[in-house]
């Protein structure tokens, strides 16, 4: 059993690191740096400069891959499989149709939970942020959700709904919603009261104030909260699948490690890393650019 948890822990870590990694808000100085580099003086030198930083990142990845490849022969395959074995594990899982099936199951859990968190969390967070009554009434639940161990939520969900999709989704929502709520609440509190007064003075209705002042002001906090929540939700979903034996990547990892199929564990771990990157650059960054066009840039 201890080996299972260790493997689960190891798997959880790379994804767990993600909420910290891309936590960059729209005002992230690193992004400004990137823009500044793009608008630097034209010519060959600037073209070189634009590629030098991505090139360093790729270089580091290649060095790690090389080191892994050199180290692998010195360890048994169930401790450190070679990169090519991990790749073969992927191609065989893919050709059997298992990869898509399991990834789809996990994505369903994850995106369903994420969607529920966003749709329920935005109005809830705004209400809590604007009303001290709502804040006081919700405090007990928020503190509970923030501090209760995920393992307890999983145990409770198993009792209530068994190893089902709704269990995994429920645990993921319960375990990740506070990260989103706290951001939206903070954003709502940070709203410039001068702007609300301006809108009132121009006879804006409460609905119009919500639409024209409150929601746009909350957008950066919404984005930051959504990004952290997605990272946490990945972690909890996989953890829940692993422990409940519900279908999905988490369960695949638990089955693989029972058979000491470490290359499959590596393969699933890297698959999650790849999907996280796709979501980050395919969905988050474009949405962020669209929603924060007005923000002062470098």
């Amino acid at each position, binding site marked *: 059993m201890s080996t299972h948890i260790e493997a689960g822990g190891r798997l959880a870590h790379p994804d767990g690191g993600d909420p910290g990694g891309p936590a960059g808000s729209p005002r992230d100085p690193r992004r400004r740096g990137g823009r500044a580099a793009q608008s630097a003086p034209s010519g060959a030198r600037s073209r070189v400069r634009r590629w030098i930083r991505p090139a360093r990142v790729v270089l580091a990845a290649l060095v790690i891959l090389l080191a892994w490849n050199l180290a692998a022969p010195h360890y048994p395959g169930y401790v450190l499989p070679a990169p090519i074995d991990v790749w073969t594990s992927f191609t065989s899982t893919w050709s059997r149709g298992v990869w898509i099936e399991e990834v789809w199951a996990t994505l369903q859990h994850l995106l369903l939970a994420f969607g529920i968190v966003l749709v329920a969390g935005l109005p809830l967070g705004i209400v809590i942020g604007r009303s001290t009554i709502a804040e006081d009434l919700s405090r007990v639940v928020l503190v509970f959700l923030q501090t209760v161990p995920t393992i307890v939520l999983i145990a409770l969900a198993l009792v209530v709904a068994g190893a089902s999709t709704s269990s995994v989704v429920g645990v993921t929502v319960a375990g990740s919603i506070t990260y989103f709520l706290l951001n939206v609440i903070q954003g709502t509190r940070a709203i410039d009261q*001068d*702007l609300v*007064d*301006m*809108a*009132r*003075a*121009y*006879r*804006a*209705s409460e609905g*119009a104030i919500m639409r*024209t*002042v409150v929601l*746009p*002001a909350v*957008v950066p906090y919404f984005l930051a909260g959504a990004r952290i929540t997605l990272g946490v939700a990945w972690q909890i979903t996989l953890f829940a699948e692993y422990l409940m034996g519900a279908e999905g990547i988490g369960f695949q990892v638990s089955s693989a490690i029972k058979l000491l199929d470490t290359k499959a564990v590596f393969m699933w771990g890297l698959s999650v890393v790849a999907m996280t990157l796709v979501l980050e650059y395919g969905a988050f960054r474009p949405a962020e650019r669209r929603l924060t*066009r*007005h*923000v*002062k840039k470098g």
Partner: protein
Amino acid sequence: MATTSAPMIAFRDVGKTYPKTTAPVMTGVDLEIQRGELVALIGPSGCGKSTLLNLLAGLTDATTGTIDVAGSAGTDELRSAYVFQNPRLLPWRSVLRNVEFGLEQAGVPGAERRRRANEALELVHLHEHGDKYPHQLSGGMQQRAALARGLALEPDLLLLDEPFGALDALTRGYLQEELLSIVRRFGTTTLLVTHDIDEALLLADRIVVMSSRPARIKRVVTVPFGRERALDSVLAHPQFVPLRHEIRELLRPEVAASDPTVEAGAPEVLSS
């Protein structure tokens, strides 16, 4: 301004005490303002001049007394615009969309809204900057955009809270003239809070001199320069300097009372 019709705005014994405080910011204010009149409120800083505007804008309620607007209770039927001390533009809207804000809330349809917002931007010489976002403008330009937002509404009541304070002298002079001509053209009733005596004399029909906290009306000075005035002719008017002196003398003890660090002999804040 000796009109006999009912006043557009009537403050009757209005007092204001903010919650959780004991000292009132304003007591016993009685003031009638006629339709189309431009009234300047002048007084030491922090004396509650802005509170008067906030009461009219419906941002806060009077603790005592009543405020009648256009002969009725409540201000909702009235189209009013408020230009604040700071621009208060929505950072996520373009300048043009910011200027459209009041029109939007008044239910003016899209095409007309755009046309009127563009006209207002032209008045403040910002028509080439409509597509920019507020952070791309200088502070003075932002304040002009805020003025355009108020003017675009063609309001019945225009509330101005030191709107030209942040502007350079040249722009200020130009906008003061522009404002005067617009307000005259549309017959806009205007309340202008200022601490600049010259500005009050240049623009106002009447100047209400306020005391330090709690704010009371100390004196109402009628400005004798006529309604159609050019700023240069006002400066050359024989009454200009005596009036300026009179108002300064009225304010001198108030400024000293509101700020103990100011020597009663030298109220520098008031000499512009």
